[in-house]
């Protein structure tokens, strides 16, 4: 795995960006902030996702988990920020946020929305590997609902790793490659409930927690936490679970 990553990163024309995937999400640029639109599940997940980020970031950076601006002064990078659905809340919580996305339309939508909201966020149309090459580093790097969409996972993970400061934190969230994730994450969400456009996810690209953990550990990270994100159809909402990582899950790792 590591060998592949090293060799591919040297080939200049290789990248983690899957052009078809970027086009699919870029075509949704106008819909990012429509809480009842095609990305509704993402909005429904967001309170739980932010709750998890808040808890992990406060714990790792020794912040008091109270008040409404716990991230004051932290430099946070959101990889695959889309329209800024997570970048904006991070900024409101006090962080200095950089948001990157390979889709130019997404970045335009994100910039417009942040301006309307009066939020200052550094949005750039770029990739993790290109940004990593500039040697910039961050206290926290988030890559939410993104690893299942990238090509060349080892290259992507190594780029993410380089973007984290020493003692900094990286947090992923993605879909597990389990039969249950296929049933709920693709069959139910795309075909039956029509929550997401058909073709949003490809099961073969789903990632098991160990497939994230191993390369990160090899790059000198310590796994801080793995938790599930579970949908409850009765309350029509998501919540963080310490035991059920079968479908959606988070992985937080600290750079030693």
């Amino acid at each position, binding site marked *: 795995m590591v060998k592949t990553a090293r060799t591919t990163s040297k080939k200049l024309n290789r990248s983690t960006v899957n052009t078809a995937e970027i086009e699919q999400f870029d075509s949704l640029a106008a819909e990012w902030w429509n809480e009842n639109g095609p990305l509704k599940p993402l909005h429904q997940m967001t*309170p739980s996702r932010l709750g998890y980020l808040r808890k992990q970031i406060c714990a790792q950076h020794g912040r008091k988990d109270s008040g409404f601006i716990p991230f004051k002064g932290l430099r946070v990078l959101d990889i695959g920020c889309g329209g800024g659905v997570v970048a*904006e809340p991070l900024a409101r919580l006090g962080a200095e946020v950089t948001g990157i996305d390979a889709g130019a339309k997404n970045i335009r939508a994100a910039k417009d929305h942040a301006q309307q*909201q009066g939020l200052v966020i550094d949005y750039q149309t770029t990739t993790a590997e290109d940004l990593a090459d500039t040697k910039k580093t961050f206290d926290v790097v988030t890559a939410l609902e993104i690893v299942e969409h990238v090509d060349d996972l080892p290259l992507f993970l190594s780029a993410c790793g380089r973007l984290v400061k020493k003692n900094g934190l990286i947090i992923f969230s993605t879909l597990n490659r389990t039969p249950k994730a296929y049933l709920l994450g693709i069959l139910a969400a795309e075909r039956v409930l029509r929550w997401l456009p058909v073709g949003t996810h490809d099961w073969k690209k789903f990632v098991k927690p160990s497939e994230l953990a191993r390369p990160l550990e090899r790059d000198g990270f310590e796994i801080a936490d793995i938790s599930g994100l579970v949908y409850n159809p009765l309350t029509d909402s998501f919540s963080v679970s310490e035991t059920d990582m079968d479908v959606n899950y988070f992985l937080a790792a600290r750079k030693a």
Partner: protein
Amino acid sequence: MAKIKHVRTNVLIIGGGLSGLALAGALGEAGVDCVCIDRAPPVTQLTETYDGRTTAISYASHLVLKTAGAWETMLPDCEPIRDIRVADGASPFYLHFSHDDDGNEKYDPGREAPPFGWIIENRILRHRLFNNVKRLKKHVRHIAPAEIREFIRGKNDVGVILEDGARITAPLMIGADGRNSAVRQWLGIGVKNADYKQSAIVCNVAHELDHENAAVEHFRSAGPFAVLPMTRGAQGEHRSSVVWTEHGTDTKEILSLNAEDFDARLQELFGPHLGAVRHISKPMSYPLGLMHADSYIGARVALMAEAAHAIHPIAGQGLNLSLRDVAVLTELIFEHLRCGLDPGGDTLLQKYQSARRGDTLLMAGVTDLLNRLFSNDLTTVRLIRGLGLGIVHKIPPLKRYFARQAMGISGIMQKSLRKATN
């Protein structure tokens, strides 16, 4: 107030009545910045003549007031209800709930069971809620008296321009401006009305004997007659508050009686068990009707309390429903701000609506049904309801269910309320 140009806040509350003040208190206590606008000057609201009515605070409601930091200051003026007695006109059956029936072990463990609720005078409740908001001035700005010139909407906020030109905007606005809500009208949200063709006469009475903390509800064909235990008066007299329902046209005749005749009518209804009774506040009459807004939400706006729903006061659930709105809104707003999310987004609004509409419709339906069942003279219905009371009395779990309903703690209890019990 004249110097205000533009105030931006997190939550803009329109209406400084009981529920608006309770919400401002709950938000302020949670550290959420808000502005509460009231058209009436606070001074007139705090005088004795302003509102002679009393309010029943259920067990669940007291938890909301506790969360808002206002409970301790009003507790000395709250009279606990430890027994509820329900009598059906001439029926031989009598339903008696003692507070030991409620099945709630959480309250003050090791000591006595919690009361069903408390009776407090509205003017005292409002005074304490107002003082509570003043205490929280770091987060809550109370603007009164203030007339709204117009409602305004921006791309990412909503708000008002006041008569003095001040502009107040927030990502979320709450309409807590009562039955004839201007916020609701601005949103173009319609209402469904049901007129009960009944009015309630409300007054406070002094009586010779101790009420022993019992609330008594007599179901009569014209509607219920309720006696609610109050704290003792300034001269140590025993006091109760009366809610006396009559057919629409009959209240005028009763209100025009002279003091002596009015007291004689009261005495007939009270019976002998509290001794001689006399009224000690001016009897007032309020028309009864069910009102329900077609929606509780609009873009960046939520309606709460009587702006969204007004129910029959038969079970004393009006303010209790409103305080549950307060609990749900406070929890949702707090969680959203804690996560850096826009508090005026559709996610929050839809969660609020789905959490509250079902509960309110259920309560409206139950109180409406109770009223229909208990307010007519059909012999079969009388017989059934007479038997019904007897049956409820014989089955402890059923009784416990009704008792819990009266306390307002059945169903899904709000997280913030559960926290307050710990």
